[in-house]
């Protein structure tokens, strides 16, 4: 029984003796006899660590990971971006990895200062005054933003553009059943949300770029929010925003995003990072942790979690959110990655992605039967209408060594031409994709449709 516990048999005996017990079993005398498991758990006994690692390796070998064998053109909120070894090395430092929530600031300045820097960077990206210290993922950030919006506007009708990631909308709907928010989904037309003319939403939600990769005129949504007194929540991409107008400059009240692109591997969907920024006036409604600067008794700069009276451990049922453990290590990672990228690097990543996407789109729409799904401007992702089902195409391209993209639901393509097939495809190009990869991809794409 190899484990990570230090106790030798002698020590166990002496410890038991010290507390007046005769066996380890007696420790559980307080558990009613009937509840005590009469047998071992129905699972194998422990195996040595190297065997367990080998098992996980064997599982891993049943996956086909993105890399030279499967060149990645899929995105949709999870991006195959350059993560330099320096980011991984720093974020792996065990002081960051194996610490708890910084409840004792005197011995947690490392994490606290990194979070303070993270908050500053996210606020700057979003063009807003306040950022929290992370949420679980893009979807949970959206849920929290809508909760804030409803609370701030006092109205629970939430208009959500279908440009918002379908999974995020689904999560929103799951939890809206509890909060009682009324979620109204709003269609896109040519990649742009067609907001209703009438009605009085408490919150308006849109994405920029949206799930089709399109850049919408956010001004329209801002006007809608102004005219109805709604809170404008904008889902943004932290890389794209380095070359696009920021949520703040578009007038968003709250900006949320998926932060995975800031140094996290794809990891089959997690752990990722929920970004959350808002205007100063909403700070007391902020969900999650917030780090503030203060001083210690010697007057030295020190960081500490603050405005704690919003949080569940203090406010309990009146808290702004229930979030406790969230994604601190990912926030630290993002701070490191953003430090590595810096002002010039982040814009370079966005630019290279955009150049690659434009180059790739030109090749793909040149293929017989392939059409752009919309004419709206796009940046690093774009959507296509295919002559066949997207899953079929993706499948064929896997055989050629490409992950072609993400199928788009019929909510985007309509069923007129396609029956129940999903003939929309979202294609993503990151700064890692080379010209020769794109050329080979386009050629394989054409072959797969022949």
């Amino acid at each position, binding site marked *: 029984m190899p484990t990570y*516990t230090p106790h030798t048999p002698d020590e166990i005996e002496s410890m038991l003796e010290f507390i007046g017990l005769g066996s380890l079993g007696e420790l559980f005398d307080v558990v009613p006899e009937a509840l005590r498991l009469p047998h071992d758990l129905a699972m194998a006994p422990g195996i040595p*660590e190297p065997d367990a690692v080998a098992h996980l390796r064997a599982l*891993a070998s049943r996956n086909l990971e993105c890399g030279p064998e*499967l060149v990645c053109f899929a995105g949709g909120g999870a991006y195959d971006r350059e993560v330099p070894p320096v980011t991984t*090395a720093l974020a792996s430092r065990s*002081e960051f990895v194996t610490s708890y929530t910084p409840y004792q600031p005197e011995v947690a300045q490392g994490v606290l200062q990194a979070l303070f820097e993270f908050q500053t960077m996210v606020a700057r990206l979003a063009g807003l005054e306040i950022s929290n210290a992370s949420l679980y993922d893009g979807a949970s950030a959206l849920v929290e933003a809508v909760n804030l919006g409803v609370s701030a506007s006092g109205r629970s009708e939430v208009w959500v553009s279908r440009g918002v990631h379908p999974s995020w909308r689904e999560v929103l709907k799951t939890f809206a059943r509890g909060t009682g928010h009324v979620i109204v989904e709003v269609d896109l037309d040519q990649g742009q949300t067609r907001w209703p003319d009438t009605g009085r939403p408490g919150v308006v939600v849109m994405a920029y770029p949206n799930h089709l990769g399109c850049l919408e005129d956010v001004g329209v949504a801002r006007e809608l929010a102004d005219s109805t007194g709604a809170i404008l929540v904008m889902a943004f991409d932290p890389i794209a925003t380095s070359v696009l107008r920021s949520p703040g400059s578009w007038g968003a009240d709250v900006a949320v995003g998926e932060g995975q692109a800031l140094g996290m591997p794809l990891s089959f969907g997690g752990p990722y990072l929920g970004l959350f920024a808002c205007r100063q006036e909403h700070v007391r409604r902020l969900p999650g942790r917030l780090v503030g600067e203060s001083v210690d008794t010697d007057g030295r700069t020190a960081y500490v979690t603050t405005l704690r009276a919003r949080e569940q451990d203090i406010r309990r049922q009146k808290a702004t959110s229930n979030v406790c453990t969230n994604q601190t290590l990912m926030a630290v990672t993002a701070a490191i990655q953003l430090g590595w990228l810096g002002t010039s690097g*982040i814009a370079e990543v966005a*630019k290279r992605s955009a150049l690659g996407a434009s180059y790739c789109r030109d090749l793909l729409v040149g293929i017989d039967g392939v059409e752009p799904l919309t004419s709206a401007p796009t940046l690093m992702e774009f959507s296509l209408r295919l002559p066949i089902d997207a899953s079929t195409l993706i499948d064929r391209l896997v055989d050629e060594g490409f992950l072609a993209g993400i199928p788009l639901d019929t909510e985007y393509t309509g069923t007129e031409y396609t029956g129940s097939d999903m003939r929309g495809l979202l294609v993503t190009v990151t700064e890692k994709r080379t010209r020769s990869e794109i050329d080979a991809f386009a050629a394989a794409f054409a072959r797969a449709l022949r």
Partner: protein
Amino acid sequence: MGRDPEPTIFELSQPGRSAWQLPTTGIPDRPLDDLIPPIHRRMDRVRLAEVSERDLVGHFTRLSHRQFSVDLGAYPLGSCTMKYNPKAFDLVAGIPGLADVHPAAPARCTQGWLELMVEIEEALCEITGMAAGTLQPSAGAAGELTGLSLMRAWHTAEGAPRRKVIIPDSSHGTNPASVTLGGYEAVTVPTDERGCVDLEMLRKVLDEQVAGMMLTNPNTLGLFEEQIVELAEAVHGVGGLMYYDGANMNAILGVTRPGDMGFDIVHLNLHKTFATPHGGGGPGSGPVLVADRLVPFLPGPRPVRLATDGSQAVASEAPDFGWMIPERSIGRVHSWHGNSMVLARALAYILVNGSDGLRRIAELAVLNANWLRVRLDGILDIPFDRPCMHEYVMSADSLQHETGVKALDIAKRLLEEGFHAPTIYFPLIVHEALMIEPTETESMQTLEALAAAIERIVADSRAPGGQERCAEAPYCTPVRRVDEARAARHLIATFDARSS
């Protein structure tokens, strides 16, 4: 080396400096204005820090020297299960076949991940005595909200959603917060003099509007709820569901199971019980396991074994894996499939420990806590002084009355002894609470050193000038006591707010 203040990265920044290097792509260059219409172009450059790779490394390495962690010493933070996180599993997280898999890749490219998820779900079901589960929730609180959503879906399907959820007054703050977000009213039941839920008082608040009850067992006092069967029967009696907050599961692994106690919904904190590192406050993972009757409501898509006809297959009969959306699913609760990499680490931990090792974890966690409880007997108050499970609560109440030294002061003094402080002022029902959870990975020698440190601190509290010395502590941590009130009063939450 850790003692010097570290400037922010923004203060290290110099215009024009950079660290990034990107791979050569060979794609012809074009101006961005060709690609982005003017109304969408950001006018200014995003001001991030501009540092060299060398300065980046220096900065974050120095910051790490200002941070305590499990790897530096014992972390007896009650309710948090800060056990040792095996280094081998960091390596697992770096395997490209796990790390570089896109979450939207077709199932044929992700068979390994799907199998891994099914494997851990099955293991967690066995450990908790439940039927099936979801791996999507990112942490305990997310699990709670998911569980409460399942409760709502169940009662809705049964006729009406109900209004109230019962929680003990000793419960963790996430419980009431989740109850509210789940659309319920939190009804609190008091703790009796033995430190358990007051069964009589519970019976008084039970009615047909009660959707269920949330409970940790052992509870946040570290005590096993001995009347758990009666509690569950009472709640079930009015048609309510029992929700198990698994934060304290470490105490009972392989010994007893929530499912056997009568719970219908269980969340686990993999980042506590299953040794995945806390990361300074996350990522976690809070899978939710449920009894048979709730399975159709689980979030989807769920990873499942597939029979040859594409339907869900029974355990280990089929080599293929796929996704399935439960009939009456409440829907997704995560952008993708959950904190997958945390699941991979937890599975490795479960495999290494196995049936025998998991039980041994519980035994030694409980042994350590009881040893420390007995060892410190008489040093501080122990409000509920009877055999505990994996943690127990002390109180500095008498000491405070006698000397003015508070739980907070004791905590701060411990920080300079090479230990993290215990959880303090929780649970709320104990004055001047100090909640200690040593975990099974600390040795007897470490426990003795911790006990000796507490003893010394208490003795010094009573010595002349003790109160002042304690109130001033800590002395030689990277910073000294931080002015929390000032942080809230004069909010500086970004570098840009500094000067304003």
